[in-house]
């Protein structure tokens, strides 16, 4: 039997193989992870659903990846998987592998807060489609992960329940908004996680924590049960320690869902059969507009070295221009808040969540929303409400939606010439907690390289390309992500490229450094 000390370091594909060979039981795997979460993450390990400690009781040594740990349900699911495996029932390829679920996706019997006081204590009466498909694949959900409130942020500091910390350096942010999911996988608190990505909320935290993270083609991951931020952009997607793991998790959860009216009908491509085919002969475009000013020198050096590796592997590297990419971030910060202001109107103190009593319904609505939403959510609701209001709609939302068309056309034209596009995922390595909280615009610039693909709806993946020092600490070595973008519904291309680069890079997804989370076993 595998020693528990090594279990949490196994990637999902290797863990699944051990489970299938019955070297280890699903229950042993779940218990090992629960023990480590109880020891390391800052939860109160009591009852059927464990809660995170209150924000002011958290230690700076705790990543705070989880808001809730569904311990009893995870153990019961694991026991059920083991019983069926013993009975000779054929199980799915990821059966028994644990997973951390971003707290923006509903799961029956577990709280869904979206990182907000507005939904504190709310237990949804239904499963998201993604949750349902994970269950069908016998992936065991360990718990719900911390996030920027309603997925608005790039550092997970906007959670109402305290910030998540980066397992590579606990004084730095894990990125966001899916920072809890990233910290769970990077911190050996789950081998897999699901996040959601609206403008980079999977790819940027994956980059900052040394993980693989993917935003599938818009419309291929069901949004049913995903609490909406910006409906035309929101997509769930995988976090993993390897490209193959991420591809397996996406394969287990994507595909058409009639319960989501924006879901794209038709079959989705096979992500695994061509995974190891390599990049020889592939034409790869480097996006001219997604580099240079604003990108840290350490990030650019790692990116340049990755391009050399791709070239050595037989890919042809060419420079490509996306003339409207520079307008991606301005367009995003009109479109996403506009859609958010509309979507978050549902939090009115009537059907679920918080209510602050007042004499009239309108006063109750306004008082409830004032008390329930944090500063960033209020800011975005205000931007969106203004951008959609009479007299401003044409210049703001409509104009941004037209620019969005031009960005999508830039990508289409580029993909006539190249098979895939690459850029750094984030202009910076992980920054320190508090560094960017005072200036909303500085925080928004984290999304500059990820937003164009979001607006075009194309699939994009981030994988670790190496380590670089932070500008404020020459001795540090922090993960740098490379972003791969592929044409619509050609998600298999980004995985194939990512796999080839990953093999050539040899990055070990195990946090190191003086302030890294402990990677030692706990039992």
């Amino acid at each position: 039997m595998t020693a528990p000390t090594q279990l949490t370091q196994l990637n999902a594909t290797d863990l699944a193989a051990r489970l299938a060979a019955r070297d280890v039981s699903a229950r042993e795997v779940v218990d090992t992870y629960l023990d480590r979460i109880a020891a390391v993450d800052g939860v109160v390990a009591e009852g059927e659903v464990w809660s995170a400690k209150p924000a002011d009781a958290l230690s700076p040594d705790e990543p705070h990846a989880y808001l809730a740990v569904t311990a009893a349900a995870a153990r019961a699911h694991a026991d059920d998987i083991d019983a069926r495996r013993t009975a000779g029932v054929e199980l799915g390829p990821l059966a028994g592998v644990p997973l951390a679920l971003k707290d923006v996706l509903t799961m029956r019997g577990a709280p869904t807060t979206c990182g907000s006081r507005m939904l504190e204590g709310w237990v949804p009466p239904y499963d998201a489609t993604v949750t349902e498909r994970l269950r069908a694949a016998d992936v065991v959900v360990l718990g719900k992960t911390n996030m920027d409130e309603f997925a608005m942020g790039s550092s997970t500091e906007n959670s109402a329940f305290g910030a998540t910390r980066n397992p590579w350096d606990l004084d730095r942010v894990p990125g966001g908004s899916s920072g809890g999911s990233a910290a769970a996988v990077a911190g050996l608190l789950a081998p897999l996680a699901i996040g959601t990505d609206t403008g980079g909320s999977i790819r940027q935290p994956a980059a900052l924590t040394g993980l693989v993270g993917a935003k599938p083609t818009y419309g291929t991951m069901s949004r049913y049960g995903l609490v909406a931020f910006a409906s035309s952009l929101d997509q769930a997607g995988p976090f993993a320690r390897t490209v193959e793991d991420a591809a397996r998790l996406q394969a287990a959860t994507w595909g058409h869902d009639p319960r989501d009216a924006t879901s794209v009908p038709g079959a989705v491509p096979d992500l695994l059969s061509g995974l190891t085919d390599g990049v020889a002969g592939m034409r790869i475009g480097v996006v001219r507009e997604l580099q240079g000013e604003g990108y840290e020198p350490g990030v650019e050096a790692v990116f340049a070295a990755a391009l050399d590796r791709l070239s050595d592997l037989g890919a042809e590297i060419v420079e490509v221009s996306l003339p409207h990419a520079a307008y991606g971030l301005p367009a995003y910060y009109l479109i996403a808040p506009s859609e958010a202001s509309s979507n978050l109107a549902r939090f009115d103190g009537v059907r679920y969540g918080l209510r602050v009593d007042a004499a009239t319904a309108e006063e109750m609505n306004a008082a409830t929303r004032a008390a329930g939403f944090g500063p960033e959510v209020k800011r975005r609701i205000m931007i969106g409400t203004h951008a959609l209001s009479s007299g401003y709609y044409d210049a703001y939302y409509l104009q941004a939606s037209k620019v969005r068309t031009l960005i999508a056309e830039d990508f289409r034209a580029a993909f006539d010439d190249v098979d895939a596009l690459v850029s750094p995922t984030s202009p910076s390595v992980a920054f320190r907690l508090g560094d960017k909280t005072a200036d909303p615009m500085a925080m928004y610039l984290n999304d500059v390289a990820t937003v164009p693909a979001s607006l075009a709806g194309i699939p994009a993946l981030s994988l670790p390309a190496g380590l670089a020092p932070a500008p404020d600490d020459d001795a540090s070595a922090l993960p740098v992500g490379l972003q791969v973008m592929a044409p619509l519904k050609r998600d298999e291309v980004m995985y194939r490229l990512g796999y080839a680069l990953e093999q050539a890079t040899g990055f070990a997804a195990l946090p190191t450094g003086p302030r890294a989370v402990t990677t030692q076993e706990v039992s």
Partner: protein
Amino acid sequence: MALSEQEVRHVARLARLALTDEEVAALAPQLSSILGYAEQVGEVAAEAVEPTTHPFALADVTRADESAPSLTRDALLAGAPAVEQDRFAVPRIVAEEG
């Protein structure tokens, strides 16, 4: 564009947000800065361009008109802050006459 505190209060009313004076004072310059940045989209000549809201041209998405199991009333009311007679309860909406 620069947003005045009066305009911030107007937008807050539309958004049903009861902001404090401190929040209004902080938001006016922040929103002005963010909108000033976002206004760059106006530099793009896009009069004849169709707006995009979905990367695939889906239209009139329908489902078969068949009944299927749905959530029970009790399950849906269970998360509500106030319930009366199997309904969501809210404070009065129309002012009393008088």
